[in-house]
């Protein structure tokens, strides 16, 4: 099974600014996927972005991009041009048949 660590319980960003959320993971598996999920207050958890461990190119989805450092087992999420709707809990599970979620990072966006 995988374990993930999100060392930033809370982060804050000014609207329109850029913020990076950190995530490290530990796995003995050779093939796996990494995900960032977003859980807005009182709303459903949704997928933000995913990265296959075999791909060296970092995934990008509009304002969201990742910095995947496989050797360091690091998988950070960068949010550019932050919007009020980005305020949420963010989770970064790793998956090789067993998805495990860490403690999450609460992101606040200041207007």
């Amino acid at each position, binding site marked *: 099974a995988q374990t993930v660590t999100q060392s930033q319980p809370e982060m804050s960003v000014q609207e329109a600014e850029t913020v990076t959320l950190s995530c490290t993971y530990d796995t003995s598996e050779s093939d*796996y*996927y990494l*995900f960032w999920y977003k859980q807005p207050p009182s709303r*459903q958890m949704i*997928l933000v972005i995913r990265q296959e461990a075999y791909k060296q190119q970092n995934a990008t989805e509009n304002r969201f991009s990742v910095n995947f450092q496989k050797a360091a087992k690091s998988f950070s999420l960068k949010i550019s041009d932050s919007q009020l709707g980005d305020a949420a809990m963010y989770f970064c599970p790793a998956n090789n048949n067993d998805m495990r979620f860490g403690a999450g990072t609460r992101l606040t966006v200041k207007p």
Partner: protein
Amino acid sequence: EADIYQTPRYLVIGTGKKITLECSQTMGHDKMYWYQQDPGMELHLIHYSYGVNSTEKGDLSSESTVSRIRTEHFPLTLESARPSHTSQYLCASSEPGFSYEQYFGPGTRLTVT
């Protein structure tokens, strides 16, 4: 939004009652999951299923049970609710294979008095 539903959304019950939390999905996903999450905290996997007639316990010890008689339905039952069961319960489903994302339901917020 994903086609996965949970009922009830909110439930307040007394200690000792038996309750069943419902979860249904219309996507034909084989894998389904139950998580327990205190507000603003991490998710703990309590049960999962690979398909019909398959149920497995997760990481968090739970006094709940699950069943999977139909692909689309994965109910969770507490035989005797206690105040320590007060939490949010999230249901999710996914295609088999670890490349696939999980789709989450809206959750059931349970309060046991």
